[in-house]
């Protein structure tokens, strides 16, 4: 019954994931630094300046944990557990010199992002005085980009990105469909005589890109309905994840990148998040 399947597909395609606008509650921000004294204060001030641009950010309370209060990841986790913050703000490679090389996030951040459900705001690494490189970009969230390889239905990601986008700002909703995986499957399709390879390529590619496109339309509609001021820009394409995202971040002069780090299938960080977090060292990241 090919036709039954044909019409079921038509109706399934007409069923869209709808976006529901929700406010991300951020009441307590825990600032974690390995600096001490005034450099730690300067870093904390930078975080507070950034949070001031966030929707309802002026209602946040801030707690700072400086470098003297922890050394191991276990110490830090205990402190986080005690505070139960809504957001942790920190930077790469705490208590380590490894931040100079773009290969790792450091043990503390690795553990924090995976063992707690609290979002982590990853700032560019500050110098010894507490000032960050590219300091201008760390105090505004005018151009925010949500990054994922599966945008459709990801309300948490979009609402978090919205919360960090200034009301007059632009939120880039992106979805890059991995070229390599697509080509791998198309390679298999190309060996099946019953399937027209070019037809399959055209249809599958169109459908893969249509779903995030529809979802972004539903985000815009929901924001209009909720009277939320924000410009939504759609960036949906095929490509190589890390390469494409680095190009998009550069091309759009993004102030903040929002991305998921949890992966249901593994305890390590999500496959797309880790390389981006390691390589995009000058752009603040909100890691969910």
């Amino acid at each position, binding site marked *: 019954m090919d036709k039954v399947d044909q019409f079921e597909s038509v109706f399934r395609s*007409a069923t869209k994931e*709808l976006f529901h606008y929700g406010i991300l509650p951020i009441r307590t921000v825990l600032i974690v630094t390995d600096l001490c004294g005034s450099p730690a204060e300067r870093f904390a001030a930078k975080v507070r300046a950034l949070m001031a641009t966030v929707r309802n950010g002026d209602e946040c309370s801030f707690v700072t944990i400086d470098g003297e209060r922890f050394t191991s990841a276990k110490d830090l986790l205990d402190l986080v557990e005690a505070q139960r913050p809504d957001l942790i703000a920190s930077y790469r490679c705490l208590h380590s010199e490894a931040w100079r090389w773009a290969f790792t996030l450091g043990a503390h951040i690795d553990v924090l992002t995976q063992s707690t459900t609290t979002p982590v705001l990853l700032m560019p690494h500050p110098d010894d005085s507490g000032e960050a490189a590219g300091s201008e970009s760390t105090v505004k969230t005018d151009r925010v980009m949500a990054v994922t390889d599966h945008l459709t239905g990801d309300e948490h990601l979009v609402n978090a990105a919205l919360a960090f986008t200034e009301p007059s700002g632009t939120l880039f909703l992106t979805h890059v469909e991995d070229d390599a995986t697509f080509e791998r499957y198309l390679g298999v399709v190309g060996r099946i005589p019953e399937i027209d390879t070019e037809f399959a390529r055209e249809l599958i590619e169109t459908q893969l890109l249509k779903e995030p496109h529809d979802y972004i339309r539903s985000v815009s509609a929901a924001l209009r309905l909720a009277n939320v001021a924000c410009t939504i820009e759609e960036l949906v394409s095929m490509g190589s994840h890390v390469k494409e995202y680095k190009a998009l971040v550069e091309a759009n002069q993004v102030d903040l990148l929002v991305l998921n780090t949890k992966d249901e299938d593994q305890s390590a960080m999500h496959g797309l998040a880790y390389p981006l977090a390691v390589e995009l060292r000058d752009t603040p990241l909100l890691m969910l």
Partner: protein
Amino acid sequence: MLATILSLIPGDAAGAANHTPPAGVTYLFCGLLVGLILCLAFEERLHAKKSIIAGLFAVVCLLLGAAFHILPFQDVLIGAIPISLPEGLLPSDWSPAHHIYGGEHAVHMPVYIPAVDWGVIAIILGSSLFVDVTSRSGLFTWIAIRLTKLSGGDPRKLLWFYGLMTVVFSAVLNNVTAMIIVGSLSAVSLGKLKRSNLLLAFLLTEGLLTNIGGLLTLISSVPNIIVGQAAGISFVRFFIVASPFVLVTTLLTLWMAVRVFKIPRLSGVPERLEAEELVASFDENDGIDSVGFFWFGAAMLALFIAVIATTSVLPWVSSLGMGYVALSFALIMLLRYRSSADRFYQTVDWDLLGFFGALFVVIYVMEHAQVLHLIGQGVGLLLGLGPNGSTASLLVSAAGFSSVTDNIPLAAMLANILKAQAAQAPELISSGHWWAVIFGANLGGNLTPIGSASTLVAVTVMHKHKLPLSFIGFVAKALPYATLHLFIAVLYVLFVVPFLA
């Protein structure tokens, strides 16, 4: 068996057609017809498509028909027109009932070509292409999704809306396409509403309603087309006669289904809000690639129905017939996809068309083997029961036969028999008999899952969604409805049809 057949074959196989074959030959072809009907009834078990089964029987029938000299191999006369001759030139055996033709030219044609009713084939091919291309405009899915949203996700409202949509789609498109559209929508929407437990009830009800909706117009089902063409019933007359019955039985069926399957209503505001949100996620515009083509499709569908309805009275078009109309509309719609029209040709149900072609050939041979005459004698016994008794028994027996085998051969056979009876003894055949065949052939499909193509589609969707329903299970669930439908149909044909027809 082979020896028996060979002993019946006359010496000169290439001799002229003999139209009164020996009784043994007639019984042999009778056996072949029973074999065909049985094979079609067990089509699923045989794992063979209808076209293959009927095609094989057609091949064997033609070969035996040639061997027994029962087929007319003469040239076919084309373009013959009735002519008037002065009284003195008329043949001695001439009577006003016989026309004299002239102006024709003889064409050599394989015997199986004029055997096929190409008008019926053209209607089926044209309308299926037209419906397929029109469905690409997103029109039918738009209607289906709008109704789903209108229900607010309430299961009971959904059943009523889907039921009415099934009937209308069956009438306007055909019952198989209607079942495919509404059945697949039911599966998706009930899944979305987390009400998949109601899918069996929905599919069964929709399956039954396709056969009721299939009665609404002349082009809604193949038996309607075959019998309607044979009886000379126009589209409008068909609709006038059938629509009151369709309306009453549709409402009764839906009312019964709600009670029998205990289809609930939404209770409480939270449940209603949740359901509303779930159906709101359907986007009726998703399937519309071009708004212009959508409206063109809607306009063409309305025009198609209007032209089909008035074919018999439209100048020039009436001579060309409904097949011409269906093919023309299909061609106009295909202009939108002129560079990729071959994709639509691939989606045509060639199995169905091949089946019809082969079936017409088998029936043609049966006619020449006097098998139809023999069955006609059986039908004559029914006709001997008096006007009411014959009509009621014809309806019930047609329903009984079509419940276990395909209703198309039944309709084709009975149409030929009634036509022959009407020519021989017009006083014996009333309009009620034709309508008895139409109602019986359609409604018989509701008795078993193999009774009609659309109920078979309903069962296929059930199995696709892992809903267990055996043959007996289907009969047990459908019997109360089918009995009610047949009871109303008998009363309707006996007491209402004479006034409307």
